[in-house]
């Protein structure tokens, strides 16, 4: 009797213990589920916040890439706790509704405790803007008849390698007054309806814009061309960002030119025999507030190409190749002298070159929103 009772008691106790264990397990699992969900939420937040941090870095430095997985410094998210964040920034191509777009892909893998979250962002590689004031490969308020001379002016859009991007360009010449191709220049571009016309002489009138009515809104300063408040470009040049320079005497320029090269000449002064060095890039400004500065005879070393945007009050004797665009601010361009001998040079419009040149201005913002175009965000 005593032994049987003991067995019953022990058996019942064992059953009770097993059941209690089961209850504890259920409770533990419920807690584990909630903890796992909480950790996964933190991992997702970390991944997305990291992308925001990396996008800002890209906005500050457009050529920045990280091909192999790198660890984000823990100092960036020191207060979060036990987490690791790996990332890459690579060039790629993304297809959106059948359209191939050169893109940058950012991948982030955030690990928090036991949970990992992967997030990715695609960015259009050609970020930046083409200012609306750039209406042609050469845009001017004054007469371009003599300035264009016998060059090749092509307003069709070119990439940085010089290949044509179909039906995406601008006029060859855009002038606020009448234009006559006196110097037998070969002229091509994209018409207002979006059709490309290769350079020819005589030119197709569809690629020339003359007597365009700016209605008093033609930019009166380099900053206006880019839609900036006056003084912005000069300030960037003075701060030396990305090799930018500000000089009042062109002989003090250092080469190669990059960033914003701002040459402010005294009223009525001409920069004669302007040498831009080898492969100059960025935004070249030659200007004073009375719009009376002038470049006469401009060239590069070994006929290398200027890539970017030239904004000057007045230019004549253009003996260099430009991939980008030229904007001339003065109404008083050359109308008497002839410029022969530059039929071996060309001005080709390139939206990519202009965007690249203008990124330096956009770097002046903070954060990434509005500075770089995100095509898609995979959270």
């Amino acid at each position, binding site marked *: 009797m*005593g032994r049987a*009772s003991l067995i*019953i*008691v022990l058996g*019942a*106790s064992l*059953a*009770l213990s097993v*059941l*209690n264990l*089961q*209850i504890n397990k*259920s*409770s533990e*699992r*419920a807690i584990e*589920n*909630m903890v796992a*969900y909480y950790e*996964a939420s933190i991992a997702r937040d970390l991944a*997305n916040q990291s992308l925001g941090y990396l996008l800002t870095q890209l906005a500050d430095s457009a050529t920045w890439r990280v091909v192999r997985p790198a660890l984000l410094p823990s100092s960036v998210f020191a207060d979060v706790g036990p987490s690791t964040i790996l990332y890459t920034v690579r060039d790629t191509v*993304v*297809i*959106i*509704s*059948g*359209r*191939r777009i050169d893109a940058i892909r950012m991948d982030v893998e955030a690990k928090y405790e036991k949970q990992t979250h992967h997030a990715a962002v*695609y960015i259009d590689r050609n970020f930046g803007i083409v200012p609306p004031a750039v209406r042609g490969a050469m845009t001017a308020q004054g007469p371009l008849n003599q300035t264009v001379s016998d060059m090749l002016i092509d307003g069709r859009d070119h990439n940085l390698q010089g290949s044509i991007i179909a039906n995406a360009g601008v006029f060859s010449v855009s002038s606020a007054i009448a234009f006559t191709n006196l110097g037998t220049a070969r002229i091509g571009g994209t018409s207002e309806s979006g059709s490309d016309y290769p350079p020819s002489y005589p030119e197709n009138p569809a690629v020339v814009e003359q007597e365009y009515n700016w209605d008093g809104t033609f930019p009166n300063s380099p900053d206006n061309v880019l839609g900036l408040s006056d003084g912005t470009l000069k300030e960037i040049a003075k701060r030396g960002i990305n090799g930018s320079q500000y000089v009042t005497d062109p002989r003090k320029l250092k080469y190669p030119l990059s960033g914003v090269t701002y040459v402010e000449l005294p009223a009525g002064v001409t920069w004669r025999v302007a040498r831009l060095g080898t492969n100059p890039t960025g935004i070249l400004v030659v200007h004073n507030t009375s719009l009376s500065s002038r470049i006469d005879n401009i060239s590069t070393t070994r006929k290398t190409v200027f890539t970017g945007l030239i904004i000057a009050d007045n230019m004549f004797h253009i003996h260099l190749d430009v991939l980008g665009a030229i904007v001339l601010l003065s109404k008083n361009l050359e109308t008497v002298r002839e410029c022969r001998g530059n039929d071996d040079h060309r001005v080709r419009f390139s939206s990519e070159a202009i965007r690249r040149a203008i990124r330096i201005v956009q770097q002046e913002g903070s954060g990434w929103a509005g500075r770089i175009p*995100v*095509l*898609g*965000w*995979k*959270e």
Partner: protein
Amino acid sequence: MGTQWDYIGSLVIGGIVIVIVLSISNTLTTTYHRTRDLISQEAALHLVRILEHDLYKIGYLTPGVPVVEADSTRLRFTLDVDEDGIPDTLGYVLGDTAGLSQTTNPLDKPLYRALNNEEPVGVAIGLVDFSFAYFDTGGIRMEYDSLKAERHRATIRSIEVAFKVEPAEPIDTTYIPVVIRRLIRPRNLTLW
């Protein structure tokens, strides 16, 4: 004297056995409750994770207005699931109670998820209440009727998902619910 001790011993042991049996009964009930709770909780978390996974990708790598259909119990939107350049369409539709007539709970309904033209798949169990709500840039809740117009769907910036999950079987006569409400703000709706 010995007999007296036998009686006392029997009473003690009998008492212990009765207490243990009552405890076992009580513990069995608790275990049953906890297991049901756990199933509901897991079902709710499972569903919220699926919804978050999908809804955060609304409009991913697709042009135009990504929300194709928006109602309290229906949502269809575009995204590029496999990044192949071809937009996909993903939809959620709440079924009615007849869709889950085999369960004891008379109120539970199926929630179907369908990618493109694939067969809809049920993604929830024990779902008794479910709704989508839509909010514009200013965080103002949008009227469902207005969302029939594409121009209004174009202004959706965040989506609230609210649902209640109950166990398939009642505990005694009641169903203990798990209620979840999540506001999802897909970044692809706010990039441009």
